[in-house]
């Protein structure tokens, strides 16, 4: 009953709103921030992030992430932003994705994954961006004024004033980014990730190997550390991937 009532309220709420057709998810969605605002929000947070997380100096490694990342992003449905891929000095097997398509791979992950596996991990992150999982997570959990404040700080027009508020906003975005994605979001990012990797010319079965390698590499506490803390439900996803991959490969 409560669920039904909530659905009615939700439908009523949507009726007066501008909705966005999201070709990645195939749904009409209500997204409060436009893409450029999402990019500025991301830029603001990334400027802070790279102060604490230096980029790897190995140019070849950066180029490898960029080249594979660009290939999988090129076939994604969301083309209104420019995707950026970087590698940071961190041995943990993890990846971080910020609003607006800023994707950071840890060196640890780059070291253990081959190109097909890396293509899946990057494409999964691109999937979260294309499906606007991050934008939705932020708009549903962050005070809108704070969100706009951080976004305008990214353009430079917010800097200097309310520095403390902006720092608080950046922290809020960090916290939201480090929250686990929902099961539904993970399945969706996997489906998109496998599709993008395959369309970009990589072996889609790299997805299964990548998850297994990350599990092995993390050791006994793999569920609560690193990659699977933000991208959980791994056993269910591994099962689902065995169905998704042949479906995706058949569609081409």
């Amino acid at each position, binding site marked *: 009953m409560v669920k039904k009532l909530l659905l009615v309220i939700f439908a009523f709420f949507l009726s007066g709103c*501008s909705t966005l057709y999201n*070709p990645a998810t195939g749904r009409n969605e209500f997204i*409060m921030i436009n893409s450029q605002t999402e990019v*500025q929000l991301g830029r603001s947070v990334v400027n802070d992030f790279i102060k604490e997380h230096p980029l790897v100096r190995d140019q070849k490694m950066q180029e490898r992430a960029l080249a594979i990342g660009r290939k999988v992003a090129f076939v994604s449905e969301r083309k209104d932003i420019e995707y950026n891929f970087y590698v940071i000095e961190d041995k943990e097997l993890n990846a971080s994705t910020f609003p607006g398509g800023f994707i950071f791979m840890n060196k640890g992950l780059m070291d253990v994954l081959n190109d097909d596996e890396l293509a899946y991990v990057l494409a999964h992150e691109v999937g979260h961006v294309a499906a606007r999982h991050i934008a939705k997570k932020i708009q*549903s959990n962050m005070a*809108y*004024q704070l*969100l706009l404040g951080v976004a305008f700080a990214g*353009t430079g027009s917010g800097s200097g004033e309310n520095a403390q508020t902006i720092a608080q906003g950046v922290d809020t975005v960090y916290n939201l980014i480090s929250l686990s994605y929902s099961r539904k979001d993970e399945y969706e990012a996997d489906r998109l990730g496998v599709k993008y990797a395959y369309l970009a010319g990589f072996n889609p079965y790299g997805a299964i190997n990548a998850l297994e390698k990350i599990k092995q590499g993390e050791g006994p506490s793999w569920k609560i550390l690193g990659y699977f803390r933000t991208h959980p439900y791994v056993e269910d996803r591994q099962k689902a991937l065995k169905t998704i991959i042949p479906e995706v490969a058949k569609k081409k």
Partner: protein
Amino acid sequence: MKTKIIVLFLIILNICSGALYALEISGMQIMIIAGASLKKQSIEQGSSARIVTYEVDKPLDEVISFYEAFLNGDSFSVIRGRQNNIFDASVKKNNVMFSLRIYPDVSKPRSSDRGRSPSGFRPDKAKEQETSDLGPRVLHSNAGKTMIQFIW
């Protein structure tokens, strides 16, 4: 100087052509184009964002031009703006920030839209607009009706 004159002209025109009223956002008065009526007000859970939507029986382009002149003339900082025949911007002046969206009303499909989905949107056509926020809304508008949405 030129834009200030245009804004002044638009304000005078707005006053002459109907009741002028404004929406107060964080203490700032934002002009509502003459003839607009309040369609919906709501608060988004979690972000506490207030969403206020007006409807006006004026062409989309006229409404967009009105608000572009208003924002430019009043020196607002704007992220994005007009794109693919809609207007979608985050705006800021001093400590006042909000989002403004102007888009065609598609709540009731036109008679020529019969056979399409109730929302008047066709996924096949929407795909052509895939780089556009609010993409499908642009494709099948109710003739003349324009929506103005403020989020803050």
